[in-house]
Each structure stands twice: as structure tokens, then as C-alpha cells.
């Protein structure tokens, strides 16, 4: 186990190890071959190691990238297709949604589509409206797809390896803001996977549950630290890791323990994944709900360019902290966790 591995490195190791393990695995996408090694360098060195046949630069043809991925996947290969920004999947939505996701089903269970679509993106870099979207809610609504959104190097590596071994089409979304984060990762070659569909409790707590994924998990952890320090509140942070299928059991278990819930993502709040999670928790545990579940999500606007405007539209740690305080305060639950905190919450 290494202590301090970059998310980028962890992802590259996952690709490298899976390519070494299984010669059916190959990569294609824009600018992924050396010397560029990908717009964000995740694939750096791999074309040199495995050859330009197995790490293929493509034209700017997202329809063909995904479509060729589908064709290769149903005929015995295990392609990892890279779409430079998740936003550009809009160009290829038919191939993703009406081909990749539906072929197994339409074939009556005959064919499998072991295709991983790696993409990255997300807000926070003044990349403006066309390069900042979080679109997981669309894919979440499409039966036949899996959607993976890791928050740590460990999970990223283990989930990517699991996604490549999975026989279904997987949207593997790497949030750009995490690429330079670091964390413990087993030694190279020490084979491990993180199962798809299982959430992970990134921090235990008894007072409130925060459900998040991707970069929002980091903000949730920061929020939890702040709440512990300033309010004496112990928040439990549940990292979904896989957004579809989502791990209802773990979320419910945590909620049943804490009795208060905040669901947080950076995607637009209206119609986001948070709505489904909140609605489900109400449905499954209404008797335990004594205060509204808080949903943190982006305001109803495209992502603006100017940093101060972007920060206004896209939520982060502060919005989670505020949501937790409001929730606990409205639930009259600060009594249990400290009077000073309740007063502070009043100011929110």
C-alpha cells in the first residue's frame, strides 16, 4: 500500500493493469496516445507500452468513438472509449442510450456490451456552460447503463478495473477537480477491485447523513470536519461511488442511524439524482423523517464563466454545511448536539 498516490496515477494504473491482464482491453479516444497521452494525461505512456493499435487516437468523431466501441464490445473485445468531456457525450447520445444501453435487452439477453466510456469534466474551472456539466442524472434514467463516479484514488482504480471487467456498458466519470488529489492505493500489480453498486461510508457519524459522490464527497468530508469543529455535529458521509445502480440499502441504513439526511451533488438540483434519492428515502422510511431531507444541487442555470458567478451557481462545502445546519435546526435536533451550534445555525 502506498500512501499518497495521485488520482491520475491510480487511473492510469488501472488501465495499465487491465491491458496487461486481458488483451481484449484496448483504448480509443481523442489525443490519448503519446506524446500527448490524453488531454489530462491519464493515458500517458500506455501507447508507448502497448502500441498504437491498442491505444488509438481517434478523429473528433464522438458518434464513431462510442459506436465503434459498441461494435467492438459485442464482437469480443473490451473497449475503453474516452470522451474528452462528459458534455461531448451529447454528440453521441444515440450510441450511448439507444445502442450501447439497449442492445443486450433488445437482443433478448443474447449479446453483452462490455464497453467502458471514460469521460471527465465538471464545474469549478471557469470552463463555462459547455465544458462544466454534470450529466449523470440522464444516464441514471437509462436502464442498461451503469454510472460510476469515484471520489478517491483507491476507489477510482478499483472501480475502473471493476468497470472494465463488467459485462455491461459503464459510464465512468472522472471529475476533473479530483485529478490532482492524492490518497492511499495498493501497490501496482496488487490486484483489487471495488465492486460496482456499493456505496462506501467515508466518515462515520451519528447526527446526520450526507450522501454525495465524486468531488462532492470531498466537500462533504470538509463540511463534516467543519461541523464537528464548529457545531459538535458528527456527520456520516456516504459516498455512492456508483450512481447507477445506487446503493439504496447503505443510504437507508445510515439514515436510519442518524435520522437526518442531506443529499448533495453539483449537478443541477432540478431533476438531479438527489431527487430520486430523497424521494426513495421518504418512501422507505417516512416514519423516521421528522425534518425535510435537504437536497443540495446547482441553481437552475447553465454554468457561467466568471469565477464568482460560477461559485454562486455551483454548490460546494459551504452549501453542505448550511444545509446540515438548517436540517438539524429545523429538526430541533441541535439540543442533542450542542447549544452553541444551535445558536450558530440560527444565523444561517
Amino acid at each position, binding site marked *: 500500500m502506498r500512501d499518497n498516490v495521485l488520482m491520475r496515477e491510480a487511473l492510469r494504473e488501472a488501465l495499465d493493469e487491465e491491458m496487461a491482464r486481458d488483451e481484449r482491453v484496448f483504448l480509443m479516444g481523442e489525443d490519448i496516445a503519446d506524446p500527448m497521452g490524453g488531454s489530462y494525461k491519464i493515458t500517458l505512456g500506455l501507447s508507448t507500452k502497448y502500441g498504437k493499435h491498442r491505444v488509438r487516437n481517434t478523429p473528433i468523431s464522438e458518434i464513431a468513438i462510442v459506436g465503434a466501441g459498441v461494435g467492438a464490445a459485442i464482437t469480443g*473485445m473490451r473497449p475503453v472509449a474516452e470522451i474528452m468531456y462528459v458534455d461531448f457525450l451529447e454528440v453521441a447520445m444515440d450510441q450511448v442510450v*439507444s445502442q450501447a444501453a439497449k442492445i443486450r435487452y*433488445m*437482443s*433478448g439477453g443474447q449479446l453483452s456490451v462490455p464497453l467502458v466510456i471514460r469521460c471527465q469534466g465538471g464545474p469549478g474551472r471557469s470552463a463555462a456552460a459547455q465544458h462544466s456539466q454534470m450529466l449523470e442524472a440522464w444516464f441514471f434514467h437509462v436502464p442498461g447503463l451503469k454510472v460510476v463516479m469515484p471520489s478517491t484514488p483507491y476507489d477510482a482504480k478499483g472501480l475502473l478495473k471493476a468497470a472494465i471487467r463488467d459485462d455491461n456498458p459503464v459510464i465512468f466519470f472522472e471529475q476533473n477537480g479530483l485529478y490532482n488529489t492524492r490518497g492511499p492505493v495498493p501497490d501496482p500489480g496488487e490486484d483489487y477491485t471495488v465492486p460496482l453498486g456499493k456505496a462506501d461510508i467515508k466518515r462515520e457519524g451519528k447526527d446526520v447523513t450526507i450522501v454525495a459522490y465524486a468531488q462532492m464527497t470531498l466537500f462533504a468530508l470538509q463540511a463534516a470536519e467543519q461541523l464537528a469543529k464548529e457545531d459538535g455535529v458528527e456527520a456520516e458521509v456516504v459516498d455512492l461511488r456508483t450512481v447507477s445502480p445506487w446503493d439504496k440499502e447503505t443510504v437507508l441504513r445510515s439514515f436510519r442511524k442518524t435520522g437526518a439526511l442531506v443529499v448533495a451533488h453539483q449537478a443541477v438540483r432540478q431533476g438531479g439524482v438527489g431527487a430520486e434519492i430523497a424521494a426513495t428515502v421518504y418512501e422507505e422510511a417516512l416514519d423516521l423523517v421528522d425534518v425535510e431531507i435537504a437536497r443540495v444541487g446547482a441553481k437552475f442555470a447553465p454554468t457561467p464563466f466568471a469565477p464568482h458567478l460560477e461559485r454562486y451557481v455551483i454548490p460546494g462545502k459551504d452549501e453542505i454545511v448550511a444545509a446540515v445546519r438548517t436540517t438539524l435546526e429545523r429538526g430541533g435536533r441541535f439540543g442533542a448536539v450542542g447549544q452553541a451550534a444551535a445558536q450558530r445555525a440560527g444565523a444561517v
Partner: protein
Amino acid sequence: MTRPKRSDKKGETRLDRTTALDLYTRMVRIRQFEEKAARLYEQGLLPGFLHSSVGQEAVAVGVCGALRKDDYITSTHRGHGHIIAKGAGLDRMFAELYGRETGFNRGLGGSMHIMDFELGVLGANGIVGAGIPIAAGAGLSIQLRGTDQVAVAFFGDGAINTGAFHEGINLAAIWDLPCVFVCENNLYAESTPQEYVLRIPALTERARGYGIPGELVDGNDLVAVYDAARRAVERARAGKGPTLLECRTYRWYGHYIGDPAVYRPQEEVEYWKARDPIPRFEAWMKEHVGFDDADREAVWQAVAAEVEAAVKFAEESPLTPVEAALDCVYS
């Protein structure tokens, strides 16, 4: 603008009698399958839509006749012919149209989505153009696995203005993928005649834009299609990259069964019916490999019996249990 040049290399054909009879039978199987399906549909027995390929049999059979069983095809909404030409049993075809458990797709797919991996049928497709990049991907898979298979994409003239066509063919071209792109140019996309949506005399003009050969073929001449397909398939198998074939043909029915096809003149339909690929190939066989009325009778009757048995098979097949409707979402 240059006039489109039609390839005319019939002399080189290598069709022997056995092969010719086999191809002939495949055309008759398609014809009878489609006619029977149309009748069943008109009687309200088949759910969904039905797109008939009657009149276009020579394209499906000429191309698939040049393929091996382990070669791949992707097809379209008008895909019955391709799939039968590739070797599909009529029983499972009908069962799928009826939406039964024994259908190729267990009733989950229906007419527009028939797939059979054993036969290399990667799927009929309800999205115009979508099969083209998928075939490129199958070609890529072949290239990476190092086999000598070939992947063929069938598509209509309507598909050539889709982004999928452009991106898929270019990808196959730049990577020398073992693909053949077969445009069944039946002059219409639904009601839209081709000259409304194209400014070029032949689609093969576009092949140049990808740096690949294009060949214009009489799509009602089985021998011409077969020969052109063989050339393209050999080229692909030899690692020399893809070819674009444009096969001019005509669909006798409207866009779907039930479409009155008010958008085209009756004389045009008659003109094309007079160029029916089946009698045309009979004439060729008579001249080149021997074929008489008895041969004809034998094939038509055998196929008629097959169709009858297949419909019975389908009608007697059980419905798919509803659980399958949730079980097949993931592998």
C-alpha cells in the same frame, strides 16, 4: 459534375450452379417471408411496424452470398432480407415478429431489432445510420483480434446524410478496417426522393472524400451485386480497407406495410416491378448454369412449405414470461 459510372464487370463472375441455386433460394425465401409477413400484418396479427424489403432481395443476397458465416453484418429497420440472406431460419424470424419466446430476441426486440450472434447478425436497427459506426467497431475488433473476418453495414440512401455515416466511414477508412459499406439506394427515404436531399449524381462521389473506393452497382442484378461484393470483401479480408457500394434498387411496398406511398407515381412502381431481381436471375441461370421451370417450382414449393411451417411454429410458440422483461437489462 461527372456522370456516375456503373461497374460492368460481369464477365468475371465465379458463380457456379450450386452457389447460384443457393443464392436464388435465398432470394425466394426473402420474397416469400416478406409477402407472408405483410399478409399477417394486414390481418393485424403482428404488432409494431413492418418494413418490407420486397424488390430489394438481390442486394441482401448478393452481398451476404459473398460472406462467410463468421462475417458480421449490421442492418436497418428494413432488415429481414439481410438477416435471412445471412442464413436466418424463418421460424425464429416469424416468432420474433409475433413477439414470442422462440424468436431470435425472445420478443424483446421485434422486427426492427433482430439480432443473432451465431449468424454474425449484430442487429437490425431502428435508428437510421446507427449501424454504420457499429460495423466499423466490429471491423476494428476483427483487426485487433487478427482474424480474417469482414464486417458489412447495410443502410439506406436516407442514412447517407447522417452524422453516423460520416464519422463511421471515415473511421473505417483511416484505420483500414475490414468493412464493406453497402448503401441500398431505393431512391426514397420514407416519402423523400433522394434528389431532394443530395446534390450529387451518385453517392459514390462521397467515397472519394474518405479516400476509399466506391462502386455503383445495379442492385437488382444479383450477379452484379455478388461480384462487386466479392471484390469489396476480398479487399477487406486482405487488409486493404473498406469499400462503399451503392446498389440501386427499389422497394415495391411503401415505407411500411400500410403506407399508401402517395409520394411516388404508379408508373415508377411498374417500371421497377418489371425489373424484378428474381426472374432476372432466373434468366441468368438459364443462360449460364442451367435452370428450368421444374427447378423453379421445386424451390418455390420448398420455400412455401418452410414459410407455412415457420408461421405455425411461431403461432404455437409460447409468450415470453414477463420476468424476462426485467431480467435482460444487464448481463
